[in-house]
């Protein structure tokens, strides 16, 4: 007998306005439709910012998302500098770029770990998070905090990178590089991971254009969009790097894009440190006296895609309107395409592939029977389902339980 099941996944999801409750409508094991409800994490940040001064807004936008806590201030600084027509000193540009790229490395490693956890490779989870720790140490050396760095201000950065820290940065990056390579090989050459991720959650080029998705989600489907190159800001036009694009659009392609971006980021940071080393310590900010009336848009490429800030000012010292768009706002909507037609165990992975921060699937996912409304599976159960599937695949592949 056919039984239709509704699976709520959520409701907590810790980005700006998009913590959502996903309802997966399932026919047997196949997801047939998806519906969402958001607002569990709505904090009214745009409204709060209207009562803050521009200097204070930086500390609020930093706390939109803990993982992207550079990207939001970066985009806001870009917007404000556009309004005030400020030229940022080169040294500040390099420091900004270093912080943003370090953030990309730690965020991608974090995603790799969680994706590994979802498919039952807890070793990958533990490894990736272990190799992420030195990056957080680096943040602590440079900025004084592991997260929420408070580095940005209008017209520059708040602190300089000390000369004796250059070698520390390079040393830690040298340590991260072979580990990331090893991790990449372990993931990319593994036949079980191939079976779990290839052909799963495919987003075609047309889907990406319909949903206007950005970041690694778009780049894995052959849509070549990267704000760092398309609308250059900070030091990105001053260093050599390339945009990683793959064509397949499945979970595996997204993993490959993120892995290769880690190496690009390492290369960008190394070049920036070299440039800093050549220049003697100098000016890291310009004084901005007042912000004229006007409007400005700032964009920055966060680890998950384009962050967009639009600020309207009226000549006073706080914004009239401050619109924020985080990348997941558009990327998350693509679940409607990537999940439908998948099995439930693959849907978890397709959800995770967009990198919507892990909490959504980890905490409050429950499976309800549509007639009795009784809980059949909880969040852990969903992940277990996914992990069991990997075990079965392994057995079939290697003939024994490894």
């Amino acid at each position: 007998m056919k039984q239709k099941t509704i699976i709520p996944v959520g409701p907590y999801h810790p980005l700006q306005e998009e913590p959502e409750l996903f309802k997966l409508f399932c026919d047997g094991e196949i997801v047939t439709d998806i519906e969402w409800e958001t607002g569990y994490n709505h904090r009214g940040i745009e409204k709060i910012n209207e009562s803050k001064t521009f200097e204070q807004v930086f500390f609020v936008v930093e706390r939109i998302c803990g993982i992207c806590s550079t990207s939001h201030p970066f985009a806001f600084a870009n917007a404000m500098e556009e309004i005030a027509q400020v030229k940022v000193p080169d040294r500040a540009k390099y420091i900004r770029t270093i912080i943003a790229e370090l953030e990309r490395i730690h965020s991608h490693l974090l995603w790799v770990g969680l994706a590994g956890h979802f498919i039952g490779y807890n070793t990958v989870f533990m490894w990736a998070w272990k190799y992420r720790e030195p990056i957080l140490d680096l943040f602590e050396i440079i900025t004084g905090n592991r997260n929420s760095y408070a580095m940005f201000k209008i017209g520059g950065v708040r602190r300089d990178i000390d000369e004796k820290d250059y070698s520390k940065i390079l040393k830690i990056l040298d340590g991260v590089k072979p580990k990331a390579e090893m991790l990449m090989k372990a993931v990319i050459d593994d036949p079980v991971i191939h079976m779990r991720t290839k052909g799963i959650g495919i987003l075609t080029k047309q889907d990406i254009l319909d949903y206007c998705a950005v970041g690694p989600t778009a780049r894995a489907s052959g849509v070549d969009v990267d704000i760092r190159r398309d609308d250059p800001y900070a030091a990105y036009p001053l260093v050599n790097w390339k945009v990683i694009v793959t064509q397949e659009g499945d979970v595996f392609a997204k993993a490959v894009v993120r892995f290769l971006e880690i190496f690009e980021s390492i290369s960008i940071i190394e070049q920036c440190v070299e440039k800093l080393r050549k220049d003697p310590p100098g000016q890291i900010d310009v004084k901005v006296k007042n912000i004229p009336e006007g409007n400005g848009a700032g964009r920055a490429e966060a680890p998950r895609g384009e962050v967009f800030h639009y600020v309207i000012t009226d000549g006073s010292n706080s914004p009239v309107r401050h619109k924020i768009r985080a990348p997941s706002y558009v990327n998350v909507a693509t679940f409607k395409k990537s999940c439908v037609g998948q099995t439930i165990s693959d849907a978890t992975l397709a959800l995770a592939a967009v990198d919507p921060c892990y909490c959504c699937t980890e905490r409050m996912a429950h499976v309800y029977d549509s007639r009795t409304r009784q809980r059949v599976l909880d969040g852990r159960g969903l992940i277990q389902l996914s992990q069991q599937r990997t075990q079965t695949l392994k057995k079939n592949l290697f003939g024994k339980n490894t």
Partner: protein
Amino acid sequence: MGIKSYCFKKSLWLYHFAGASCNNCDIEVLDCLTPRYDVERFGMLLIGSVRHADVLLVAGSINKKCKSRLLEVYHQAPKPLVVVAIGACGITGGVFAEGNTFAGPVDKIIPVDVYIPGCPPKPEAILAGIVNFLNKS
């Protein structure tokens, strides 16, 4: 030895609830599990259902929509239960206390045993907070 200290003598199971948070505290809680801090060596385990939990970790400010969920989770949990409010937002609401959807800090909604300040608190601070509580009770 009271019932409470008897219950919390051995391996604690943690349930993690994030309200309207910025994710930083959540990541730091998860960091506690990974090799550098590794709380699992003390038998602590992060679990998916609050019905098996000894400790409820609440991070982030609570908004009007997730307030009812927090109450639901609290009532489902077996007692005695240690409730830990993590981070500035869990304790006071932090920068989000002025928001139009803010429903109150955690201790206005459910009783809180341990407060761990910081934005976000470091993993060491989270561990130290729980250990201090256990030593006291």
